[in-house]
C-alpha cells in the first residue's frame, strides 16, 4: 500500500496523469512537454525501484505466496472480468526494465519533431499499456492492455517514422493483430475450460493455475494458439518479418521501446500464459517450437551478417536474441527459464541502447547505411565507445548483461534429460560465434578505419541528454552483468521446482 492505494495501481495512474499533463501542455512548448515526460518517467523509475526493494523485503520476511500485492476489482460481473493485479519477481523485473527504458527513451526524444506533444501522448499511452500488462493477472485485462500497447505503434511509426513508414506501420500492426487474433481465441478457450465442470469460470491466472483444470486435449489446441499469438510479438520464426521493417522505420524512442519492452510482452506472455497454465501441452509440443525458435536463433544471426542498414542489423539480431528467450522458456526447467527472463532484461536494455545510439548517429549523418560511414570513433568518440560497449554486451562479453543471460540459458538447457534438447542447445550455442561476426563487422566498418565521408568530419559528439540516456542504459547493462545473482535470485524465487519434477524433466 502506498498512500492508501495498491502500489501497483500507480504504474497505471502515473502514465494516465502524464497523459493529462500532456493534454494541458501548449502545442509546441518543448519545455512543458519535456518536464511532463521527465518528471513522470523519473517517478516511474523511482516507483519501480521502491517496488523492487519492498518486494524483496516482503520475500525476506517470509512471504511465500505466488503473487504479491494481489488485489481485484470487479469490472464486468457477468463474464467475471476483473481488474486483478499482482506481481512476482519476474513482473517486478519487467516493470523495472520498462520504467528504465521509458526514462531513457524520453531523453532520447528530446528534440522530436514535428508534433512533439502528440508524439509523447502516444508514447505514454503505449507505456500505460505495457505497465498495465505486466501488473495484470487477469487474462482479459491483460489482453486489453496488450492491445493498448500495440495500437499506438501504428501512429508512432506512420507519422514520425522514416523511409517506407506507412508500409512498415501497416505491416507491423497487421501482423501483430493477426497474432492477437490467435491469442484472443486461445484466451477465450482458456476461460471456458478454466475450472472443473459446474464452477464459476475465471480469467484469473493464479486461480487457473491452481485448479489446473484445462483438459489435456484442449491444452494441445490452446497452447499453440497462445504461444504463436504471443510468439509473433516475440519475433518467432516465421512470424518475425514485421520486426526488421518496423524497426527500420520507427523513430528512435519507439524503436527503443518496441525492441526493449514490447517484444518482451511476447516472451512474458508465452511464459505467463502458455507455459504456466498449460505445462503438459508445453512439454509435449515443445519440440515443434524448439525447432522454430532454434531456427530463429541461428537464422536471425546469419541474416544480420549481410545487412547494410544499421537498424536491420539490430532487428535481425533481436530476432536471434529473442529467439533464445522463447527457446529457453521451452526447456521447462528453472535454470533455463531464469535465463530466459534474464535474457529479456538484458536484451531489452542493450537493444534500447543500440537503437538509441543508432538514432543519435542517424540524426547526425542522415544515413544508416554502414557502407557510407566509417571512422566515426574519431569524430564522435563518446557515441562510438557506447556503441562498442553495446556490441560487446550483445556478443556476450563477461561483465555485461548478455553473457550471464546466455550462459544461464545454455547451462540450463543443457541440463535437460533428453538428448534432442541438448543437441539443439549446441545448435543455439553456435549463435555466439555468428553474433561476434556481425557485431565486429559493424563496429569495424562503422567506427574504425578511415573516415569515409568528409562531411562527417564536422559532426559533433553527443549532447548532454544523449549522454545521459546512453549512460543510464550502460550502467544497467553493467549492473546485471556484474551482479547477476541478485537478478537471478529475484526471478528464480518464482518458480516452483515441483512444477518440473512432476513433468519428469529434472534428473
Amino acid at each position: 500500500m502506498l498512500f492508501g492505494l495498491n502500489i501497483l495501481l500507480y504504474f497505471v495512474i502515473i502514465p494516465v496523469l502524464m497523459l493529462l499533463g500532456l493534454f494541458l501542455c501548449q502545442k509546441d512548448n518543448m519545455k512543458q512537454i519535456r518536464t511532463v515526460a521527465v518528471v513522470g518517467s523519473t517517478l516511474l523509475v523511482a516507483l519501480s525501484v521502491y517496488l523492487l526493494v519492498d518486494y524483496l523485503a516482503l520475500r525476506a520476511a517470509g512471504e511465500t505466496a505466488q503473487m504479491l500485492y494481489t488485489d481485484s476489482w470487479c469490472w464486468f460481473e457477468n463474464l467475471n472480468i476483473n481488474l486483478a493485479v499482482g506481481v512476482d519477481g519476474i513482473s517486478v523485473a519487467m516493470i523495472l526494465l520498462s520504467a528504465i527504458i521509458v526514462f531513457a527513451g524520453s531523453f532520447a526524444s528530446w528534440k522530436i519533431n514535428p508534433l512533439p506533444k502528440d508524439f509523447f501522448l502516444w508514447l505514454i499511452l503505449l507505456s500505460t499499456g505495457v505497465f498495465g500488462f505486466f501488473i495484470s493477472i487477469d487474462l482479459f485485462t491483460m489482453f486489453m492492455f496488450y492491445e493498448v500497447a500495440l495500437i499506438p505503434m501504428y501512429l508512432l511509426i506512420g507519422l514520425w517514422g522514416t523511409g517506407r513508414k506507412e508500409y512498415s506501420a501497416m505491416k507491423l500492426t497487421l501482423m501483430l493483430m493477426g497474432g492477437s487474433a490467435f491469442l484472443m481465441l486461445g484466451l477465450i478457450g482458456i476461460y471456458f475450460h478454466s475450472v472443473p465442470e459446474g464452477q464459476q469460470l475465471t480469467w484469473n491466472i493464479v486461480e487457473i493455475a491452481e485448479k489446473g483444470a484445462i483438459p489435456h486435449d484442449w491444452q494441445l489446441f490452446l497452447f499453440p494458439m497462445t504461444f504463436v499469438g504471443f510468439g509473433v510479438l516475440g519475433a518467432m520464426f516465421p512470424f518475425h518479418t514485421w520486426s526488421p521493417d518496423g524497426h527500420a522505420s520507427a523513430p528512435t524512442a519507439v524503436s527503443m521501446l518496441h525492441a526493449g519492452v514490447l517484444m518482451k510482452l511476447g516472451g512474458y506472455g508465452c511464459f505467463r500464459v502458455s507455459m504456466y497454465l498449460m505445462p503438459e501441452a508445453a512439454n509435449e509440443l515443445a519440440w515443434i517450437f524448439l525447432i522454430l525458435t532454434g531456427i530463429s536463433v541461428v537464422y536471425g544471426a546469419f541474416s544480420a551478417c549481410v545487412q547494410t542498414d544499421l537498424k536491420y542489423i539490430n532487428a535481425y539480431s533481436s530476432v536471434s536474441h529473442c529467439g533464445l528467450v522463447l527457446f529457453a522458456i521451452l526447456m521447462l526447467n528453472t535454470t533455463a527459464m531464469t535465463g530466459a527472463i534474464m535474457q529479456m532484461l538484458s536484451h531489452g536494455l542493450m537493444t534500447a541502447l543500440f537503437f538509441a545510439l543508432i538514432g543519435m548517429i542517424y540524426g547526425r549523418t542522415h544515413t544508416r547505411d554502414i557502407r557510407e560511414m566509417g571512422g566515426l570513433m574519431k569524430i564522435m568518440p563518446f557515441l562510438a565507445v557506447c556503441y562498442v560497449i553495446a556490441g560487446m554486451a550483445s556478443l556476450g562479453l563477461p561483465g555485461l548483461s548478455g553473457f550471464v543471460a546466455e550462459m544461464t540459458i545454455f547451462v540450463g538447457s543443457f541440463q535437460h534429460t533428453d538428448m534432442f534438447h541438448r543437441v539443439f542447445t549446441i545448435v543455439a550455442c553456435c549463435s555466439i560465434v555468428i553474433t561476434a561476426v556481425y557485431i565486429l563487422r559493424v563496429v569495424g566498418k562503422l567506427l574504425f578505419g578511415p573516415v569515409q565521408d568528409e562531411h562527417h568530419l564536422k559532426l559533433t559528439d553527443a549532447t548532454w541528454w544523449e549522454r545521459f540516456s546512453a549512460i543510464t542504459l550502460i550502467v544497467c547493462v553493467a549492473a546485471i552483468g556484474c551482479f547477476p545473482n541478485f537478478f537471478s535470485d529475484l526471478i528464480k524465487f518464482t518458480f516452483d521446482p515441483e512444477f518440473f519434477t512432476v513433468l519428469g524433466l529434472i534428473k
Partner: protein
Amino acid sequence: MDITMPLMILAIPLGMFLLLGLFGNKMSHKLAGWLGTLGMGTALVLAYTTAYQYFFSGSELFINAAGERLQYAVFDYTWLEFTEKLIIKLGFLLDPISAMMLVVITTISFMVHLYSLGYMHGEKGFQRYYAFLSLFSFSMLGLVVATNIFQMYIFWELVGASSYLLIGFYYTKPSAVAASKKAFIVTRFADLGFLIGILILSFYSSTFDFVTMTSNPQSVFASTAGTMFMGGSVLTWGLVLIFMGGMGKSAMMPLHIWLPDAMEGPTPVSALIHAATMVVAGVFLVARMFPVYIVQESALEIVTVVGALTALYAAIVACTQIDIKRVLAFSTISQIAFMVVSLGVARPDFHEGLGYMASMFHLFTHAMFKALLFLGAGALIHAVHSNDYTAMGGLRKYMPITHITFLIGCLAIAGIPPFAGFFSKDEILTAAFNNSPLWGIWMTGVAGLTAFYMFRLYYRIFWWNNPDYGHHTPHDGPWTMSLPLIILATISCVAGFIPFGEFVTWNGHEYIIHLDWTVATTSIVVAVCAIALATVMYRKENATPTRMKNAMKGLWTAAYNRFYFDELYIFITHKIIFNLVSRPIAWFDRHIIDGTMDSFATMTNYASEKIKGLQSGSVQQYVWVYLVGALLLAGAVIVFVI
C-alpha cells in the same frame, strides 16, 4: 591466509583500468603512464609475496606433511548460481601452476608497462593504451587463479576482448582493424568448443569446480562410462572440445591464423599478450585439467598430434618470413606447440609426469626470452621504422644493448646451455623420447629448425650488410626501453638453473630434475649445427640464400604464404558462409517469408477489390440479386425437400 593481498592483486589492475578508462582523457600522458606502471608494480610485489608464501612458507595450507603441495582456494565468492551444484564462483586458487603464472604475468606485464613508457611516447591514445594493458593484466590474472572452469571461461573471454582492443589499437589503420576482428572471431569459434566442452563435462560431473573435478576424476566422471557419441566416448569429446578452446587461444593449427596478423598491434602488446601470457592460456588450461586428461589417454594423444604438427609447420614457415615480428610470431606458435606436445606425452608413471613439469618450465622460460625478443624487436622497429629485416642489417654497431640482449634471447630459444631454453627444452625432449621415439626425433628436428630460423633472423638484423641509414642513425631506446631488456636478458641467462621440479609437478610431489645426457647432447649438437649453417648462410651478404630459395621454389613459396591457410579461411568465410549461407538466408527472409506475409495482404486487397463491385448502390441490381437468390432457394427447396 589473509585474503587482502590476493584480492588486491586482482583489484589493482581492475581499478587502474576503470580509473584510466574513465578519467584518462583528463590526465597527461606522463601521469597516466606512470599510474599504470606503478599500479602494475604494486601488483608485482604482491604477486611475488604471495608466490613466495606459497612455495616457501611451509604453511600446512600449502604443503602437507608428506611434502605434497596442495591446492588452496584463498577465497571463493558465489557469483551466479545456476542450480544447487552448478555455481559460478569467483575465487583465487593457489597451487603450483597458478603461483608460477602470477609471477610470470606480473613480471612480463610490469616490464611491458615500463617499456611502453618509452616505446609509446607521444602516441595518440596513450591513456587508452594503458587502460587496456591494465584490463588485460586483470583478466589474465583472473584466468590463472580461477577456482572453477566457468570462472576461467569468463576471464578467457575477457582476455580475448582485451586482446581485440589492443590489436586494434591503431584503429584508423584498416589492417589493424581486420586483424583484431580476425583474432576475436577465430578465438570465439574456438571458445564455442570450450563452452560446449564445459557443458558436456558439467552435465556429467555436476560441478564446475577444478579441485572437485581433478582430485578424483575417475569417480566424478564415472557417469560418462559407456556413453558414446558419434564413435567417441563423451569424456573424450568433452576434453577434446575443451582443448579446442585452448587451440584457439594458443594458436594451434588449424586455428593459428589469427596470431601472425595480431602483430598489427603495438609491439609491447605482442610481447605481453601474443608471446608470453595469453597465448599460453591453452597450455595452462590443459595443465589445469591434466588429471582428467590422463583418465582419457585418447584425448592426450590428440593433443600430442596437434602440437607436433603445429610445431613443425610453424617452424618451417618461420624460416621464410621477412617481417621480424612474423618470424617471432611463428616461432611463438612453434614454441607453444612444444609445451602442448610436452603435456600430450606426459604420463604419470614416468618421472612424476615429467612432461607436465617440462611444459610448465618451458612456459616459464619461454615467457621470459620471447618477451625479451619481442621487446628487442620493438626497439629495432622503433629505431628503423620498418618491420622488415630487409630494411635492417649491421645494426650491432648502432644498438649494442639491443644486440647483446637479442643474442641472449636467440641463444636461449635455440637451446644452447647455459641459457634458460636449453634446460626446459631438454626436459620436453626427454619426455617425448620416453613416450615414443617418433615424437622425440620429431621434436628434436623442430628444435634444430628453431635454432636455424632464429639465427637467420639474428644475422640478417645485426650482420649481413651495412645499409645506408642516412642521417637517421638508429640507436638504442631510452632507459625505460633498455632496462626491461636487460632485466629479461638476465632472467633468460639464469632461469634454467631454477630447480623447477621442486615447485611444479602435476601431483604436487617433488621431482629432482636431472639432465638426460644422451638427449641433451643430441639436442646441443643439432642446435649448434643449425646455428653453424645459419652463420654460413647469413653472416655476410651473399647469394646462397637466394640460390637455396630458387632450388626449393615450390616449398619456399608455399611456406612463405603460410601454406595458404589464410586463403582457405577466406574461401570458407567469404565464399561459403557469406555467399552461400548468409546471403541466401537474407534473400529467403525478404522474398519467401516476407513475400508470403505480403502476399496475404495483396490477396486480401485483391479479394476486396473484386468484391467491392457488388456493393454498387444500384437498387435495380440488388433487386435482381434478391430475385435470383429467392428463386434459386425456392428451387432448391422444391428439389430436395419435397
